[in-house]
Protein backbone atom coordinates (compact mmCIF):
# COMPACT_ATOMS: atom_id res chain seq x y z
CA UNK A 1 0.00 0.00 0.00
CA UNK A 2 1.11 3.50 -0.85
CA UNK A 3 0.32 6.33 1.54
CA UNK A 4 -0.03 9.87 0.29
CA UNK A 5 0.37 12.58 2.95
CA UNK A 6 -0.64 16.15 2.29
CA UNK A 7 1.20 18.88 4.17
CA UNK A 8 0.94 22.66 4.26
CA UNK A 9 3.60 25.28 4.87
CA UNK A 10 2.31 27.62 7.58
CA UNK A 11 3.60 30.24 9.98
CA UNK A 12 5.20 28.37 12.87
CA UNK A 13 2.81 27.80 15.76
CA UNK A 14 5.11 29.63 18.18
CA UNK A 15 5.10 32.87 16.18
CA UNK A 16 2.85 35.65 17.35
CA UNK A 17 1.03 36.46 14.12
CA UNK A 18 1.00 40.14 13.07
CA UNK A 19 -1.52 41.72 10.73
CA UNK A 20 0.13 43.77 7.97
CA UNK A 21 -0.19 47.53 7.83
CA UNK A 22 -3.01 47.76 5.27
CA UNK A 23 -4.98 44.89 6.82
CA UNK A 24 -4.86 42.75 3.69
CA UNK A 25 -3.15 39.81 5.34
CA UNK A 26 -0.55 38.84 7.88
CA UNK A 27 3.17 39.56 7.99
CA UNK A 28 5.18 36.67 6.55
CA UNK A 29 8.50 38.37 5.72
CA UNK A 30 11.24 36.98 7.94
CA UNK A 31 8.75 34.85 9.84
CA UNK A 32 9.58 31.25 10.69
CA UNK A 33 7.60 28.77 8.59
CA UNK A 34 6.95 25.12 9.46
CA UNK A 35 4.91 22.09 8.53
CA UNK A 36 1.37 22.57 9.81
CA UNK A 37 1.50 20.69 13.16
CA UNK A 38 -1.49 18.48 12.33
CA UNK A 39 0.15 17.53 9.02
CA UNK A 40 3.33 16.62 10.85
CA UNK A 41 1.28 14.15 12.87
CA UNK A 42 -0.07 12.78 9.57
CA UNK A 43 3.49 12.27 8.29
CA UNK A 44 4.46 10.55 11.53
CA UNK A 45 1.45 8.23 11.34
CA UNK A 46 2.26 7.27 7.74
CA UNK A 47 5.81 6.42 8.78
CA UNK A 48 4.62 4.30 11.70
CA UNK A 49 2.24 2.40 9.42
CA UNK A 50 5.12 1.77 7.03
CA UNK A 51 7.44 0.73 9.87
CA UNK A 52 4.84 -1.81 11.01
CA UNK A 53 5.04 -3.29 7.53
CA UNK A 54 1.54 -2.21 6.54
CA UNK A 55 2.61 0.21 3.81
CA UNK A 56 5.33 0.13 1.21
CA UNK A 57 5.87 3.76 0.34
CA UNK A 58 5.17 7.14 1.90
CA UNK A 59 4.79 10.04 -0.51
CA UNK A 60 4.50 13.52 0.90
CA UNK A 61 2.99 16.32 -1.16
CA UNK A 62 2.24 19.99 -0.79
CA UNK A 63 0.71 22.78 -2.80
CA UNK A 64 2.60 26.01 -2.37
CA UNK A 65 5.46 28.28 -3.37
CA UNK A 66 8.96 27.03 -4.22
CA UNK A 67 10.00 27.70 -0.63
CA UNK A 68 7.66 24.91 0.53
CA UNK A 69 10.47 22.56 -0.53
CA UNK A 70 11.84 23.19 2.96
CA UNK A 71 8.82 21.59 4.58
CA UNK A 72 8.93 18.67 2.12
CA UNK A 73 12.62 18.16 2.96
CA UNK A 74 11.71 18.07 6.65
CA UNK A 75 9.12 15.37 5.95
CA UNK A 76 11.70 13.45 3.91
CA UNK A 77 14.12 13.75 6.82
CA UNK A 78 11.44 12.32 9.09
CA UNK A 79 11.44 9.31 6.79
CA UNK A 80 9.08 9.84 3.84
CA UNK A 81 10.33 8.18 0.65
CA UNK A 82 9.69 10.91 -1.88
CA UNK A 83 8.02 14.27 -2.24
CA UNK A 84 5.94 16.21 -4.71
CA UNK A 85 5.69 19.99 -4.76
CA UNK A 86 2.73 21.28 -6.71
CA UNK A 87 4.01 24.75 -7.23
CA UNK A 88 1.81 27.80 -7.08
CA UNK A 89 2.36 31.30 -5.77
CA UNK A 90 -1.39 31.89 -5.56
CA UNK A 91 -3.39 31.35 -2.39
CA UNK A 92 -4.95 27.96 -3.15
CA UNK A 93 -8.26 27.65 -1.31
CA UNK A 94 -9.54 24.35 0.16
CA UNK A 95 -11.75 23.15 -2.72
CA UNK A 96 -9.04 23.98 -5.27
CA UNK A 97 -6.52 22.18 -3.04
CA UNK A 98 -8.77 19.11 -2.85
CA UNK A 99 -9.22 19.05 -6.64
CA UNK A 100 -5.47 19.41 -7.04
CA UNK A 101 -4.78 16.54 -4.65
CA UNK A 102 -7.30 14.49 -6.63
CA UNK A 103 -5.00 14.80 -9.66
CA UNK A 104 -2.19 13.39 -7.55
CA UNK A 105 -4.43 10.61 -6.24
CA UNK A 106 -5.30 9.63 -9.83
CA UNK A 107 -1.62 9.47 -10.69
CA UNK A 108 -0.33 7.72 -7.55
CA UNK A 109 -3.31 5.50 -6.70
CA UNK A 110 -2.66 5.47 -2.92
CA UNK A 111 -4.39 3.08 -0.53
CA UNK A 112 -4.58 5.80 2.09
CA UNK A 113 -4.44 9.58 2.15
CA UNK A 114 -3.48 11.21 5.43
CA UNK A 115 -3.91 14.91 6.14
CA UNK A 116 -4.02 17.14 9.19
CA UNK A 117 -7.55 17.91 10.33
CA UNK A 118 -6.99 21.61 9.77
CA UNK A 119 -4.24 24.06 8.97
CA UNK A 120 -3.41 26.46 11.78
CA UNK A 121 -3.37 29.47 9.46
CA UNK A 122 -6.86 29.59 7.93
CA UNK A 123 -8.34 27.01 10.37
CA UNK A 124 -10.71 25.94 7.58
CA UNK A 125 -10.84 22.21 8.28
CA UNK A 126 -12.10 21.28 4.80
CA UNK A 127 -9.56 19.72 2.43
CA UNK A 128 -9.73 16.10 3.62
CA UNK A 129 -13.51 16.00 3.55
CA UNK A 130 -13.59 17.63 0.12
CA UNK A 131 -11.03 15.22 -1.32
CA UNK A 132 -13.01 12.25 0.02
CA UNK A 133 -16.16 13.64 -1.64
CA UNK A 134 -14.53 14.19 -5.02
CA UNK A 135 -12.84 10.78 -4.85
CA UNK A 136 -16.12 9.21 -3.65
CA UNK A 137 -14.26 7.38 -0.91
CA UNK A 138 -14.69 7.08 2.91
CA UNK A 139 -13.49 9.80 5.24
CA UNK A 140 -12.62 9.67 8.91
CA UNK A 141 -11.87 13.08 10.36
CA UNK A 142 -10.33 14.09 13.74
CA UNK A 143 -8.71 10.68 14.15
CA UNK A 144 -6.79 9.90 17.34
CA UNK A 145 -6.29 6.14 16.82
CA UNK A 146 -5.89 4.21 13.59
CA UNK A 147 -5.26 0.61 12.73
CA UNK A 148 -5.93 -1.83 9.94
CA UNK A 149 -7.54 -5.26 9.86
CA UNK A 150 -8.91 -7.39 7.02
CA UNK A 151 -8.06 -4.73 4.49
CA UNK A 152 -10.15 -2.08 6.27
CA UNK A 153 -9.15 0.87 8.37
CA UNK A 154 -10.52 1.31 11.86
CA UNK A 155 -10.40 4.90 12.98
CA UNK A 156 -11.25 6.34 16.37
CA UNK A 157 -12.48 9.91 16.00
CA UNK A 158 -12.48 12.66 18.62
CA UNK A 159 -16.01 14.02 18.38
CA UNK A 160 -17.94 16.38 20.66
CA UNK A 161 -19.68 13.48 22.39
CA UNK A 162 -16.57 11.38 23.01
CA UNK A 163 -14.71 8.82 20.89
CA UNK A 164 -16.45 7.43 17.83
CA UNK A 165 -15.20 4.45 15.84
CA UNK A 166 -15.64 4.15 12.08
CA UNK A 167 -14.69 1.26 9.87
CA UNK A 168 -13.65 2.41 6.42
CA UNK A 169 -12.90 0.45 3.30
CA UNK A 170 -9.65 1.40 1.60
CA UNK A 171 -8.69 3.57 -0.08
CA UNK A 172 -9.84 6.23 2.36
CA UNK A 173 -9.04 9.74 3.50
CA UNK A 174 -8.06 10.15 7.15
CA UNK A 175 -7.60 13.54 8.82
CA UNK A 176 -5.64 13.42 12.03
CA UNK A 177 -6.02 15.01 15.44
CA UNK A 178 -3.41 15.94 18.03
CA UNK A 179 -3.50 12.86 20.19
CA UNK A 180 -2.81 10.37 17.38
CA UNK A 181 0.94 10.42 17.98
CA UNK A 182 3.92 12.59 18.82
CA UNK A 183 6.03 13.29 15.76
CA UNK A 184 9.67 12.23 15.95
CA UNK A 185 12.56 14.65 16.09
CA UNK A 186 14.63 14.85 12.95
CA UNK A 187 18.29 13.92 13.37
CA UNK A 188 21.20 15.51 11.51
CA UNK A 189 22.17 12.44 9.43
CA UNK A 190 18.53 12.14 8.33
CA UNK A 191 18.57 15.73 7.11
CA UNK A 192 21.65 14.93 5.01
CA UNK A 193 20.03 11.76 3.70
CA UNK A 194 16.84 13.63 2.83
CA UNK A 195 18.76 15.87 0.44
CA UNK A 196 19.26 12.90 -1.85
CA UNK A 197 15.65 11.74 -1.79
CA UNK A 198 13.52 12.49 -4.85
CA UNK A 199 11.56 15.74 -4.81
CA UNK A 200 9.51 16.39 -7.91
CA UNK A 201 8.17 19.84 -8.75
CA UNK A 202 5.00 20.14 -10.82
CA UNK A 203 3.58 23.56 -11.71
CA UNK A 204 -0.05 23.63 -10.60
CA UNK A 205 -1.03 25.26 -13.88
CA UNK A 206 0.03 22.14 -15.83
CA UNK A 207 -2.37 19.81 -14.00
CA UNK A 208 -5.54 21.01 -15.69
CA UNK A 209 -7.44 21.51 -12.42
CA UNK A 210 -10.93 22.91 -12.90
CA UNK A 211 -10.67 25.89 -10.57
CA UNK A 212 -13.81 26.49 -8.45
CA UNK A 213 -15.26 29.89 -7.45
CA UNK A 214 -13.08 31.68 -4.90
CA UNK A 215 -13.94 33.34 -1.64
CA UNK A 216 -12.76 36.95 -1.57
CA UNK A 217 -10.89 37.96 1.54
CA UNK A 218 -11.25 41.49 2.82
CA UNK A 219 -10.06 43.19 5.93
CA UNK A 220 -7.92 41.34 8.47
CA UNK A 221 -8.21 42.70 11.99
CA UNK A 222 -7.37 41.71 15.54
CA UNK A 223 -10.19 40.46 17.75
CA UNK A 224 -11.58 42.91 20.29
CA UNK A 225 -9.47 42.80 23.44
CA UNK A 226 -11.03 41.72 26.67
CA UNK A 227 -10.87 44.56 29.19
CA UNK A 228 -8.09 43.98 31.69
CA UNK A 229 -9.35 42.44 34.90
CA UNK A 230 -8.14 42.65 38.44
CA UNK A 231 -6.32 40.36 40.82
CA UNK A 232 -8.13 39.75 44.07
CA UNK A 233 -6.27 38.98 47.29
CA UNK A 234 -8.46 36.33 48.86
CA UNK A 235 -11.22 33.83 48.31
CA UNK A 236 -13.60 36.10 50.27
CA UNK A 237 -12.79 38.98 47.91
CA UNK A 238 -13.35 36.73 44.91
CA UNK A 239 -16.79 35.63 46.06
CA UNK A 240 -17.70 39.23 46.92
CA UNK A 241 -16.60 40.43 43.46
CA UNK A 242 -18.53 37.68 41.71
CA UNK A 243 -21.66 38.50 43.70
CA UNK A 244 -21.36 42.19 42.89
CA UNK A 245 -21.08 41.25 39.22
CA UNK A 246 -24.28 39.19 39.55
CA UNK A 247 -22.41 36.01 38.72
CA UNK A 248 -23.36 34.07 41.86
Amino acid at each position, binding site marked *: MKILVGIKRVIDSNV*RVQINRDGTGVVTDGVKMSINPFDEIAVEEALRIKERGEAGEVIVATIGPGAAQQQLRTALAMGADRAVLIESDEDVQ*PLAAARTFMKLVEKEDPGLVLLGKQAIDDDS*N*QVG*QMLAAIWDRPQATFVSRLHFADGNGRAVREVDAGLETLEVELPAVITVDLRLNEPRFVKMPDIMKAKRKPLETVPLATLGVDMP*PRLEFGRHEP*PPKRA*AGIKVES*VEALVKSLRERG*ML
Partner: protein
Amino acid sequence: MANVLLVADHDGRTLNTGIARSVACARELGEVHVAIFHAGADAVCQSAAKLDGVAKVLSVARPENAHAVAAIMAPQLAKLAAGYDYVLAPSTTFGKDVLPRVAALLGVPQVSDLMEVVDARTFRRPTYAGNVLVTVKVPDGIPVLATVRIASFQAVEESGAAPVEAVQVDAELPRHTKYHGLSDPGGGERPDLQSCPRVVAGGRGVGSKENFEIIFRLADKLGAAVGASRAAVDAGYVPNDMQVGQTGKIIAPQLYFAIGISGAIQHMTGIKDAGCIVAINKDGDAPIFEAADFGLVGDLFQILPQLEQELEKAGL
Protein backbone atom coordinates in the same frame (compact mmCIF):
# COMPACT_ATOMS: atom_id res chain seq x y z
CA MET B 1 -36.85 36.31 0.69
CA ALA B 2 -33.80 34.10 0.67
CA ASN B 3 -34.13 30.59 2.03
CA VAL B 4 -31.76 28.86 4.38
CA LEU B 5 -31.26 25.16 4.95
CA LEU B 6 -29.73 24.38 8.35
CA VAL B 7 -28.69 20.80 8.98
CA ALA B 8 -29.22 19.70 12.55
CA ASP B 9 -26.76 17.93 14.82
CA HIS B 10 -28.37 15.41 17.17
CA ASP B 11 -27.70 12.05 18.80
CA GLY B 12 -31.03 10.40 18.03
CA ARG B 13 -32.54 11.54 21.33
CA THR B 14 -31.86 15.23 21.74
CA LEU B 15 -31.16 18.14 19.47
CA ASN B 16 -27.66 19.58 19.91
CA THR B 17 -27.87 22.84 21.84
CA GLY B 18 -25.80 24.50 19.12
CA ILE B 19 -28.81 24.38 16.79
CA ALA B 20 -30.74 27.06 18.73
CA ARG B 21 -27.66 29.28 18.35
CA SER B 22 -27.25 28.41 14.67
CA VAL B 23 -30.88 29.35 14.02
CA ALA B 24 -30.08 32.81 15.41
CA CYS B 25 -27.51 33.17 12.65
CA ALA B 26 -29.67 31.53 9.97
CA ARG B 27 -32.68 33.77 10.54
CA GLU B 28 -30.55 36.84 9.84
CA LEU B 29 -30.18 35.46 6.32
CA GLY B 30 -33.67 34.33 5.35
CA GLU B 31 -36.45 31.80 5.93
CA VAL B 32 -35.02 28.91 7.93
CA HIS B 33 -35.68 25.25 7.20
CA VAL B 34 -34.02 22.75 9.52
CA ALA B 35 -33.07 19.41 7.97
CA ILE B 36 -32.94 16.43 10.30
CA PHE B 37 -31.43 13.20 9.03
CA HIS B 38 -32.46 10.38 11.33
CA ALA B 39 -33.90 6.91 11.76
CA GLY B 40 -36.81 7.49 14.09
CA ALA B 41 -35.83 10.58 16.07
CA ASP B 42 -39.23 12.29 15.96
CA ALA B 43 -38.64 13.96 19.32
CA VAL B 44 -35.61 15.72 17.82
CA CYS B 45 -37.79 17.00 14.95
CA GLN B 46 -40.30 18.32 17.49
CA SER B 47 -37.55 20.13 19.42
CA ALA B 48 -36.37 21.82 16.25
CA ALA B 49 -39.95 22.82 15.37
CA LYS B 50 -40.16 24.79 18.63
CA LEU B 51 -37.21 27.04 17.88
CA ASP B 52 -38.18 30.62 17.08
CA GLY B 53 -37.38 31.57 13.52
CA VAL B 54 -37.74 28.08 12.10
CA ALA B 55 -40.33 28.05 9.29
CA LYS B 56 -40.25 24.35 8.59
CA VAL B 57 -38.55 21.16 9.73
CA LEU B 58 -37.59 18.68 7.04
CA SER B 59 -37.52 15.18 8.46
CA VAL B 60 -35.41 12.79 6.39
CA ALA B 61 -35.87 9.39 7.96
CA ARG B 62 -34.20 6.25 6.65
CA PRO B 63 -32.36 3.42 8.41
CA GLU B 64 -28.98 4.51 7.03
CA ASN B 65 -29.37 7.78 8.92
CA ALA B 66 -29.26 6.17 12.37
CA HIS B 67 -25.77 7.61 12.87
CA ALA B 68 -24.24 10.77 11.48
CA VAL B 69 -21.75 9.35 8.99
CA ALA B 70 -20.57 12.14 6.69
CA ALA B 71 -20.18 9.94 3.61
CA ILE B 72 -23.81 8.82 3.98
CA MET B 73 -25.30 12.15 4.92
CA ALA B 74 -23.49 14.33 2.38
CA PRO B 75 -25.11 12.98 -0.83
CA GLN B 76 -28.56 13.43 0.73
CA LEU B 77 -27.82 16.92 1.95
CA ALA B 78 -26.36 17.88 -1.42
CA LYS B 79 -29.65 16.85 -3.08
CA LEU B 80 -31.79 18.55 -0.47
CA ALA B 81 -29.73 21.73 -0.91
CA ALA B 82 -31.07 22.30 -4.42
CA GLY B 83 -32.87 25.64 -4.58
CA TYR B 84 -31.52 26.95 -1.29
CA ASP B 85 -29.53 30.19 -1.14
CA TYR B 86 -27.74 29.13 2.05
CA VAL B 87 -26.77 25.77 3.49
CA LEU B 88 -25.57 25.98 7.08
CA ALA B 89 -24.35 23.56 9.71
CA PRO B 90 -23.24 24.20 13.27
CA SER B 91 -19.48 24.28 13.76
CA THR B 92 -19.60 21.14 15.90
CA THR B 93 -17.56 18.07 14.99
CA PHE B 94 -20.66 16.89 13.09
CA GLY B 95 -20.95 20.06 11.00
CA LYS B 96 -17.21 20.28 10.38
CA ASP B 97 -17.22 16.68 9.19
CA VAL B 98 -20.20 16.75 6.84
CA LEU B 99 -20.47 20.23 5.34
CA PRO B 100 -17.15 20.38 3.43
CA ARG B 101 -18.13 17.07 1.84
CA VAL B 102 -21.39 18.67 0.69
CA ALA B 103 -19.56 21.77 -0.56
CA ALA B 104 -17.26 19.62 -2.68
CA LEU B 105 -20.22 17.71 -4.13
CA LEU B 106 -21.86 21.03 -5.02
CA GLY B 107 -18.56 22.44 -6.31
CA VAL B 108 -18.69 25.56 -4.14
CA PRO B 109 -16.39 26.96 -1.44
CA GLN B 110 -17.31 26.87 2.24
CA VAL B 111 -17.00 29.56 4.88
CA SER B 112 -15.88 27.89 8.13
CA ASP B 113 -16.81 29.22 11.58
CA LEU B 114 -19.02 32.09 10.48
CA MET B 115 -19.09 34.42 13.49
CA GLU B 116 -20.88 37.48 12.12
CA VAL B 117 -23.14 38.30 9.18
CA VAL B 118 -21.94 41.55 7.58
CA ASP B 119 -24.34 41.43 4.65
CA ALA B 120 -26.09 38.77 2.58
CA ARG B 121 -22.83 37.47 1.11
CA THR B 122 -20.20 38.89 3.43
CA PHE B 123 -19.23 37.36 6.74
CA ARG B 124 -16.58 37.49 9.40
CA ARG B 125 -14.67 34.48 10.61
CA PRO B 126 -11.68 33.78 12.86
CA THR B 127 -8.31 32.54 11.56
CA TYR B 128 -4.96 31.89 13.26
CA ALA B 129 -6.61 30.43 16.35
CA GLY B 130 -8.87 33.46 16.64
CA ASN B 131 -6.03 35.97 16.57
CA VAL B 132 -7.01 37.39 13.18
CA LEU B 133 -10.60 38.07 12.16
CA VAL B 134 -11.18 38.09 8.43
CA THR B 135 -13.99 39.46 6.31
CA VAL B 136 -14.87 37.01 3.57
CA LYS B 137 -17.23 37.44 0.63
CA VAL B 138 -18.88 34.61 -1.24
CA PRO B 139 -19.07 35.33 -5.00
CA ASP B 140 -22.50 35.82 -6.60
CA GLY B 141 -24.32 33.08 -8.43
CA ILE B 142 -23.58 30.19 -6.05
CA PRO B 143 -25.18 29.04 -2.79
CA VAL B 144 -23.46 30.11 0.42
CA LEU B 145 -22.22 27.17 2.45
CA ALA B 146 -21.05 27.90 5.98
CA THR B 147 -20.50 26.35 9.36
CA VAL B 148 -21.71 28.59 12.18
CA ARG B 149 -19.44 29.35 15.12
CA ILE B 150 -22.12 28.69 17.70
CA ALA B 151 -20.43 30.56 20.56
CA SER B 152 -20.90 33.79 18.56
CA PHE B 153 -24.71 33.64 18.62
CA GLN B 154 -27.31 33.67 21.38
CA ALA B 155 -29.77 30.78 21.35
CA VAL B 156 -33.25 31.63 20.04
CA GLU B 157 -36.29 31.09 22.28
CA GLU B 158 -38.46 27.99 22.09
CA SER B 159 -41.94 29.34 21.55
CA GLY B 160 -42.43 28.37 17.92
CA ALA B 161 -44.50 25.63 16.34
CA ALA B 162 -43.18 25.02 12.85
CA PRO B 163 -44.62 22.19 10.74
CA VAL B 164 -42.57 19.01 10.41
CA GLU B 165 -42.58 17.73 6.86
CA ALA B 166 -41.43 14.21 5.98
CA VAL B 167 -39.13 14.34 2.99
CA GLN B 168 -37.83 11.58 0.74
CA VAL B 169 -34.40 12.21 -0.68
CA ASP B 170 -33.51 10.08 -3.64
CA ALA B 171 -29.77 9.65 -3.27
CA GLU B 172 -27.57 6.63 -3.73
CA LEU B 173 -25.68 5.98 -0.53
CA PRO B 174 -22.23 4.41 -0.24
CA ARG B 175 -21.56 1.27 1.81
CA HIS B 176 -17.86 1.85 2.31
CA THR B 177 -18.11 3.49 5.73
CA LYS B 178 -19.57 1.83 8.81
CA TYR B 179 -20.32 3.26 12.22
CA HIS B 180 -18.89 1.17 15.05
CA GLY B 181 -20.09 2.91 18.15
CA LEU B 182 -19.37 5.77 20.49
CA SER B 183 -17.44 5.13 23.68
CA ASP B 184 -19.10 6.40 26.81
CA PRO B 185 -16.81 9.17 27.93
CA GLY B 186 -18.07 8.92 31.52
CA GLY B 187 -18.47 12.03 33.61
CA GLY B 188 -22.02 11.12 34.63
CA GLU B 189 -25.01 13.34 34.20
CA ARG B 190 -23.25 16.68 34.27
CA PRO B 191 -24.52 19.70 32.38
CA ASP B 192 -23.61 20.13 28.72
CA LEU B 193 -20.30 21.93 28.28
CA GLN B 194 -21.43 23.86 25.21
CA SER B 195 -24.62 25.28 26.65
CA CYS B 196 -24.22 25.46 30.43
CA PRO B 197 -24.00 29.09 31.65
CA ARG B 198 -21.28 28.08 34.12
CA VAL B 199 -18.14 26.10 33.40
CA VAL B 200 -15.37 25.01 35.74
CA ALA B 201 -12.25 23.92 33.88
CA GLY B 202 -9.00 22.39 35.05
CA GLY B 203 -5.57 22.28 33.48
CA ARG B 204 -2.17 20.71 33.93
CA GLY B 205 -1.89 22.35 37.35
CA VAL B 206 -4.54 19.98 38.68
CA GLY B 207 -1.85 17.33 38.46
CA SER B 208 -3.67 14.02 38.14
CA LYS B 209 -6.87 12.22 37.26
CA GLU B 210 -7.60 11.72 40.96
CA ASN B 211 -7.00 15.38 41.75
CA PHE B 212 -9.55 16.35 39.10
CA GLU B 213 -12.19 15.31 41.63
CA ILE B 214 -11.70 18.75 43.20
CA ILE B 215 -12.79 20.34 39.90
CA PHE B 216 -15.85 18.10 39.66
CA ARG B 217 -16.79 18.99 43.24
CA LEU B 218 -16.71 22.72 42.63
CA ALA B 219 -18.62 22.24 39.38
CA ASP B 220 -21.34 20.27 41.14
CA LYS B 221 -21.59 22.94 43.80
CA LEU B 222 -22.08 25.60 41.13
CA GLY B 223 -24.27 23.50 38.84
CA ALA B 224 -21.55 23.95 36.26
CA ALA B 225 -20.27 21.88 33.36
CA VAL B 226 -16.68 20.66 33.47
CA GLY B 227 -14.04 21.60 30.94
CA ALA B 228 -10.32 21.04 30.59
CA SER B 229 -7.29 22.38 28.80
CA ARG B 230 -5.55 20.35 26.12
CA ALA B 231 -2.70 19.65 28.56
CA ALA B 232 -5.11 18.03 31.01
CA VAL B 233 -6.66 15.87 28.29
CA ASP B 234 -3.27 14.91 26.84
CA ALA B 235 -2.15 13.88 30.32
CA GLY B 236 -5.18 11.61 30.59
CA TYR B 237 -6.83 13.43 33.51
CA VAL B 238 -10.16 13.65 31.66
CA PRO B 239 -11.61 12.47 28.32
CA ASN B 240 -11.32 14.44 25.08
CA ASP B 241 -14.94 15.62 25.02
CA MET B 242 -14.08 18.05 27.84
CA GLN B 243 -11.35 19.87 25.92
CA VAL B 244 -11.91 23.60 25.48
CA GLY B 245 -9.95 25.56 22.88
CA GLN B 246 -8.96 25.85 19.25
CA THR B 247 -9.06 22.11 18.67
CA GLY B 248 -11.66 21.33 21.31
CA LYS B 249 -14.91 23.10 22.08
CA ILE B 250 -15.47 26.80 21.64
CA ILE B 251 -17.76 27.92 24.45
CA ALA B 252 -19.42 31.08 25.72
CA PRO B 253 -20.61 30.55 29.29
CA GLN B 254 -21.56 33.48 31.52
CA LEU B 255 -19.02 32.37 34.11
CA TYR B 256 -15.81 30.45 33.46
CA PHE B 257 -13.37 29.20 36.09
CA ALA B 258 -9.90 28.44 34.72
CA ILE B 259 -8.15 26.45 37.41
CA GLY B 260 -4.51 25.50 37.02
CA ILE B 261 -4.71 26.59 33.38
CA SER B 262 -1.87 28.77 32.10
CA GLY B 263 -3.88 30.26 29.22
CA ALA B 264 -2.13 29.32 25.96
CA ILE B 265 -3.63 31.20 22.99
CA GLN B 266 -5.19 27.97 21.74
CA HIS B 267 -7.10 27.71 25.00
CA MET B 268 -8.07 31.40 25.06
CA THR B 269 -9.63 30.97 21.60
CA GLY B 270 -12.13 28.63 23.18
CA ILE B 271 -13.30 31.02 25.90
CA LYS B 272 -12.98 34.54 24.57
CA ASP B 273 -16.76 34.95 24.43
CA ALA B 274 -17.20 33.99 28.08
CA GLY B 275 -19.00 36.64 30.15
CA CYS B 276 -16.71 36.52 33.16
CA ILE B 277 -13.44 34.63 33.48
CA VAL B 278 -12.01 33.69 36.87
CA ALA B 279 -8.43 32.43 36.94
CA ILE B 280 -6.88 30.52 39.80
CA ASN B 281 -3.22 29.70 39.28
CA LYS B 282 -0.10 29.58 41.40
CA ASP B 283 1.96 31.33 38.71
CA GLY B 284 1.10 35.02 38.94
CA ASP B 285 2.69 35.62 35.52
CA ALA B 286 0.54 33.05 33.70
CA PRO B 287 -1.05 34.58 30.58
CA ILE B 288 -4.51 33.56 31.78
CA PHE B 289 -4.41 36.54 34.17
CA GLU B 290 -4.24 38.96 31.22
CA ALA B 291 -7.69 37.83 30.11
CA ALA B 292 -9.27 37.04 33.46
CA ASP B 293 -11.85 39.41 34.96
CA PHE B 294 -10.85 38.15 38.39
CA GLY B 295 -7.55 36.48 39.15
CA LEU B 296 -6.45 34.78 42.32
CA VAL B 297 -2.83 33.72 42.65
CA GLY B 298 -2.24 30.73 44.85
CA ASP B 299 -2.36 26.99 45.37
CA LEU B 300 -5.58 25.64 43.94
CA PHE B 301 -5.64 22.82 46.49
CA GLN B 302 -5.93 25.40 49.26
CA ILE B 303 -8.12 27.84 47.38
CA LEU B 304 -10.83 25.47 46.14
CA PRO B 305 -11.82 24.05 49.55
CA GLN B 306 -11.94 27.64 50.86
CA LEU B 307 -14.04 28.64 47.89
CA GLU B 308 -16.48 25.82 48.58
CA GLN B 309 -16.75 27.00 52.19
CA GLU B 310 -17.29 30.61 51.17
CA LEU B 311 -19.99 29.58 48.73
CA GLU B 312 -21.70 27.60 51.49
CA LYS B 313 -21.42 30.53 53.89
CA ALA B 314 -23.06 32.71 51.30
CA GLY B 315 -25.85 30.17 51.11
CA LEU B 316 -24.94 29.06 47.58
